[in-house]
């Protein structure tokens, strides 16, 4: 039997320029190797050098137009810290509301617009006719909630440009961006985040307008989550659990600050991190290693062995502000030195993405450097297991969405949701977690709107606190973007940026291998993925590979601050 090599480039229906090179063992019907490569570079970190630190809040959002707000949030937190400018409670509450509005648009975008078509009638009917046949006969368990009688009806509703879920989702997503524009001036690229709070004149009607739009999301969640549940359970019943499976190594920075806990001081970060509504956490081999943001930060490493960058000299900074040791590969000590190199040299440098790893610097888990995965599944996992919020039940996360009576939606009543920690991390569970996360965000935001109303009642309406820029300072901002853990690091000298570094969730996920034993998460997830597509003419379309990759919801402009291209299939003989 032969092995087939396949190159998929461009990977479409993702953000940015990504290519995947994979090797399939046709005899065993499984993918046995993969390389993830990003093919675009712009040089943000170089452009930021010597600029005013606060400008990074606007500039870094332009790293990614799909998920700009978390860049603005991470940057604002890093600058708050460097400037010693903690915002007043209402400033923090409004930041949370802006951040959440974007997540409400971005989760259905991932599940339905970008990943959905891979499970739509138009793809499945051709790629997996056995699934399509089964789907036509399979009644949807939650049809009473969402109205799609069979799984085939759900698949038809996912057809791009014509499917009803696809079209409805587009409208709901826009409403998320409108909420972001209400408090953020515009979206993409919100304009109101400033050091020390927000640049937003809060008017009496802002919060009620926000709540009225939020109600649509609450109503949509009650249909969307049951739809995705039915689809995911069906795929699982079709034996798709092995696709995209990898070990349970996860990273989450959490999010949704407690307005009274956030001080913008590094030394307190561990403490306010635990008060977030989405909990931080670092998980290795299915064990929670730590939930302390300071400890997580100190363990972050970035390597360029397989990336188009040169090494740098360090460290300049030997300790973090709390006195912990900083390694030379820690982002605070990194310098970005681009060095474009040849294409597709799998034994050498092959990507514009770097390889982040998390070092267990307190040396508990076996092996000290770990490729960890970021995304909704990571933060749902750490929040459910962590026990830091009242919704956390150890093995699940439980919340309920309030009554919302909105024309055009099927369910008005209050509804309880429970996301259970899955046994495996795989393609299906990544998608399911993204859908459930949407409901959890709607729930958090409902609570935040009530809290903001309470702040108004108490007269705490100041959105910004005046500060005086110090000469030098260090800052880090850590938050979960929709696609996962995102952090910005800044070192300020003479009131200018000396070092500015960003590690995005897609860098954690898409980064190249460091060795054949230490693959990046995309690469590792493809290895072992079964080939389910019909192989009429013997040529692979790679649909199973693209499903794995899209389950991570890649955002590559983020990643390199990526690649696009052509699929190429060639036969290589078994040696």
């Amino acid at each position, binding site marked *: 039997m032969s092995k087939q090599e396949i190159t998929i480039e*461009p990977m*479409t229906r993702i953000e940015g320029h990504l290519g995947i090179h994979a090797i399939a063992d046709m005899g065993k019907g499984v993918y046995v190797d993969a390389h993830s490569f990003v093919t675009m570079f712009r*040089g943000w970190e170089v*452009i930021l050098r010597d600029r005013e630190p606060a400008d990074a809040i606007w500039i870094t959002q332009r790293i990614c137009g799909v998920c700009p707000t978390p860049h603005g949030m991470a940057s604002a937190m890093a600058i708050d810290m460097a400037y010693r400018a903690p915002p007043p409670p209402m400033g923090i509450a409004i930041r949370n509301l802006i951040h959440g509005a974007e997540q409400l648009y971005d989760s259905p975008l991932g599940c339905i617009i970008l990943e959905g078509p891979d499970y739509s009638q138009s793809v499945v009917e051709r790629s997996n006719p056995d699934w399509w046949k089964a789907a036509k006969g399979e009644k949807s368990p939650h049809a009473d909630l969402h109205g799609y009688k069979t799984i085939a009806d759900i698949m038809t509703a996912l057809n791009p440009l014509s499917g009803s879920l696809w079209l409805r989702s587009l409208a709901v997503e*826009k409403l998320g961006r409108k909420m972001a524009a209400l408090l953020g001036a515009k979206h993409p*690229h919100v304009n109101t985040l400033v050091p020390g709070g927000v640049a937003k004149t809060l008017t009496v009607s802002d919060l009620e307008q926000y709540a009225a739009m939020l109600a649509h999301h609450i109503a949509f969640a009650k249909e969307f989550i049951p739809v995705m549940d039915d689809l995911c359970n069906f795929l699982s019943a079709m034996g798709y659990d092995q696709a995209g499976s990898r070990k349970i190594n996860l990273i989450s920075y959490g999010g949704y600050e407690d307005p009274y806990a956030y001080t913008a001081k590094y030394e307190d970060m561990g403490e306010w991190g635990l008060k977030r509504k989405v909990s931080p956490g670092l998980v290795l081999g299915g064990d929670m290693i730590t939930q302390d943001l300071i400890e997580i930060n100190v363990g972050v490493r970035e390597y360029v062995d397989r990336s188009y960058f040169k090494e740098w000299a360090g460290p300049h900074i030997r300790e973090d502000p709390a006195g912990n040791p900083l390694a030379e590969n820690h982002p605070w000590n990194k310098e970005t030195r681009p*060095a*474009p*190199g040849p294409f597709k040299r799998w034994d050498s440098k092959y990507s514009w993405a770097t390889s982040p790893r998390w070092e267990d610097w307190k040396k508990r888990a076996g092996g000290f450097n770990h490729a960890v995965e970021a995304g909704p599944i990571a933060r749902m996992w750490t929040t459910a297991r962590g026990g830091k919020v009242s919704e956390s039940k150890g093995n699940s996360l439980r919340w309920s969405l309030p009554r919302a009576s909105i024309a055009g939606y099927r369910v008005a009543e209050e509804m309880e949701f429970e996301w259970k920690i899955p046994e495996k991390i795989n393609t299906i569970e990544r998608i399911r977690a993204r859908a459930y996360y949407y409901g959890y965000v709607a729930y958090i935001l409902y609570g935040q709107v009530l809290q903001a109303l309470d702040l108004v009642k108490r007269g705490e309406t100041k959105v910004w606190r005046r500060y005086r820029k110090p000469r030098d300072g260090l800052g880090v901002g850590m938050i979960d973007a929709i696609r996962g853990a995102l952090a910005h690091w800044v070192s300020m000298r003479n009131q200018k940026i000396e070092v500015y570094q960003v590690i995005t969730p897609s860098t954690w996920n898409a980064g190249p291998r460091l060795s054949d034993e230490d693959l990046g998460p995309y690469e590792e997830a493809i290895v072992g993925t079964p080939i389910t597509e019909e192989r009429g003419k013997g040529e692979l379309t*790679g649909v199973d590979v693209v499903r794995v990759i899209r389950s991570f919801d890649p955002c590559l402009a983020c990643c390199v601050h990526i690649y696009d291209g052509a699929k190429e299939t060639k036969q290589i003989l078994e040696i």
Partner: protein
Amino acid sequence: MSGEIHVVWLPGQACTGCTVSFLNATHPSVVDLLTGFIPQAAGVTLDYHATIMLPWGDKALTILDSAAKGELDPFVLVVEGAVPDESIAEKTGGFWCAIGEENGKPLTFSERLNRLSERAAAIVSAGTCASFGGIPHGRGNPTGAKGVMDHLGRGWKSKLGIPIINVPGCPVMGEHLAETLAHAVLSVRGYLPLPELDGEHRPKFIFAHTAHENCPRAGLFSDGKNSHEFGDPYCMGLLGCKGPISHCDAPRRGFVEGVGGCPTVGSPCIGCTEPGFPDEPYSPFLKKAPAGFFVMEKIHSIKGSAEAVWGRIKERLVGRPI
């Protein structure tokens, strides 16, 4: 009404923000444009858009190749993102931005752009990166990034004789792009003249006035009311607003279905529609805009007030003709 018009959307050094923002368009919306909201504007097909298209890999790229061969004529090329200078990357045997490969080498975005530009009926640069280079072009610019107009040459015209149309904004406002594309379709079909462009190739019907002129807070400014803290409801000029030196109507129109607008809600304009963005004088973003504007603004406002007073005197002297 006659014949299909194809749209090829090519991403370069982009963040996909202009794509997402395009989905914010309302009247017409993206779906309106594709389904044809009136017969005169119907027949527009989006043939290539990496973020939303069904196919991937080679199958996707065939579309770009057929457009370059003229098999999709007439097509409008929409570019998102800046154009890097690949000669810099070639020095070390590499590339900055590739879309597919040819003969074992990466086929760069710039090369794709060159090939498509020879056949395109018109080129529309969506957003500030494609228009002027945007942030990738900002000081430090390691990749030699620039806008499409500077890459192809300011005098470039399509084979139909249409110059590059820039619709800047970081990101482009959805309504701006949808209106420009609808306008272009109606023009090509002969229902409207081509949109008039300013010196920077921006449609005048959108970019004729500054953000300050379009700002709901400008009246408060004339009345001497300035914001001194973020959160204040007055003019944002003392807190860094670049509205007086930036061409944009977002303050008046809002950003998503009429909601938002930068100084409108209390945040400083950062000049994101301008060729010089994100460098001086637009940044630092919290630094006050150059004072030159205020001198001219005062002269104009005194002239306006004098005209208002004289109009009243004249009315008393000679009566009111209307």
